[in-house]
């Protein structure tokens, strides 16, 4: 669908990965446990679909790649869903419809498409790193929102914070704010970001707004 520049950017640019996975990153970080749940599910789906797509990549014709990637990702999301329902029903209950909605997530799709035709080891490594940084970011966000939003951590109450909690952080609007601050902090520390910012905008516009450049109004 898009040029290679974009695909290479996902693995290198943690902000881009967070942006593409924005839906679960904000919806499921009201607590540490759902954040870790969706993070680990994402890691599994990323690695498994990258493995399959790197093996099948050459066999699938160029035109059928987009639907093939989407269906492979959806298949692995279904598998993770069934496993989670069987072994971690409490966590599965917290996921709501977001685990299902992740089947068409741009992060998974991008990683799967990136793996088409790539070497097996390289595809695995890249998607594992993407998934790992996604889990880390989600865990940080979930911890922040749970500790300061509902004065507990992983479901265990923190009584000394009870009087200072900010329920706003557990709402949707609070999710946007915490996500914004997290990305701003990453931007601050990432020195290479000066180069990456225009690229980020172009890549985001490339995949998210699939209109070719120069179309517009």
């Amino acid at each position: 669908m898009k040029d290679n520049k974009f695909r290479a950017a996902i693995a290198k640019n943690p902000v881009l990965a967070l942006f593409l996975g924005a839906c679960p990153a904000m919806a499921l970080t009201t607590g540490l446990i759902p954040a870790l749940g969706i993070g680990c599910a994402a890691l599994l789906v990323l690695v498994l679909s990258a493995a399959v797509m790197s093996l099948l990549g050459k066999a699938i014709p160029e035109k059928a790649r987009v639907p093939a990637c989407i269906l492979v990702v959806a298949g692995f999301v279904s598998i993770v869903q069934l496993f989670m329902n069987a072994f971690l029903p409490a966590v599965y209950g917290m996921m709501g419809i977001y685990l299902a909605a992740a089947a068409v997530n741009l992060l998974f799709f991008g990683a799967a498409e990136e793996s088409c035709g790539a070497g097996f080891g390289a595809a695995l490594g890249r998607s594992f790193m993407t998934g790992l940084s996604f889990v880390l970011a989600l865990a940080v966000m979930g911890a922040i929102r749970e500790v300061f939003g509902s004065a507990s951590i992983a479901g265990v109450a923190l009584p000394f914070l009870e009087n200072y909690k900010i329920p706003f952080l557990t709402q949707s609007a609070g999710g946007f704010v915490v996500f914004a601050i997290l990305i701003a902090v990453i931007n601050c520390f990432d020195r290479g970001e000066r180069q990456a910012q225009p690229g980020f905008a172009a890549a985001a516009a490339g995949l998210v707004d699939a209109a070719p450049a120069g179309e517009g109004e």
Partner: protein
Amino acid sequence: MEFKEIMLIILAGVLFNNFALERFLGVTPLLGSRGGAGKAARMGLAVTIVMLVTAALAWPLQTLVLDKLNLGYLQLLAFVAVVLAVVYLAELIVNRAMHGSLGVYFPIIALNSAVLGLAVDNAAEGYGFWASMAAALGAGLGFMLALVLFSGVQSRIDEKYVHRAFRGLPVSLLAASIMSMVLVAFK
């Protein structure tokens, strides 16, 4: 199905249950879109139409096939296939009829979690046919509203100086947060 109930489902979808701003479904295309209000409205219209057709197909699939044959575990794959089929058909029709003026949006609609989320949500809520159509209309219009409003906000942000750390995504997220707070007021 009562008229009042239908209206309530539509209003909920547009305002306080807004897919992009309250439930984060389809928030990535919202944050990533660039262009004026006209482009946003066309994109929103395309999403609304795809949502209506998907909901109309997903309901009989769920009640007549998946529930009858005890194939609930295939729900996600079946719905993804429906969304893909609808999007590709719509792309074909639009390319014939309108010479592709809308067609460029279709790959992102297939990858829009709002469309799939709507189908899964309708099944989870156990809506009847007309209720799920109402939910689709509400969700589509709500997505269009969010896109159009956000395109205005975005064009204002693009004119201003923003600190390096907040440039790009973070400042858009903060704007979205304020819009989300406005919608909570309708609850």
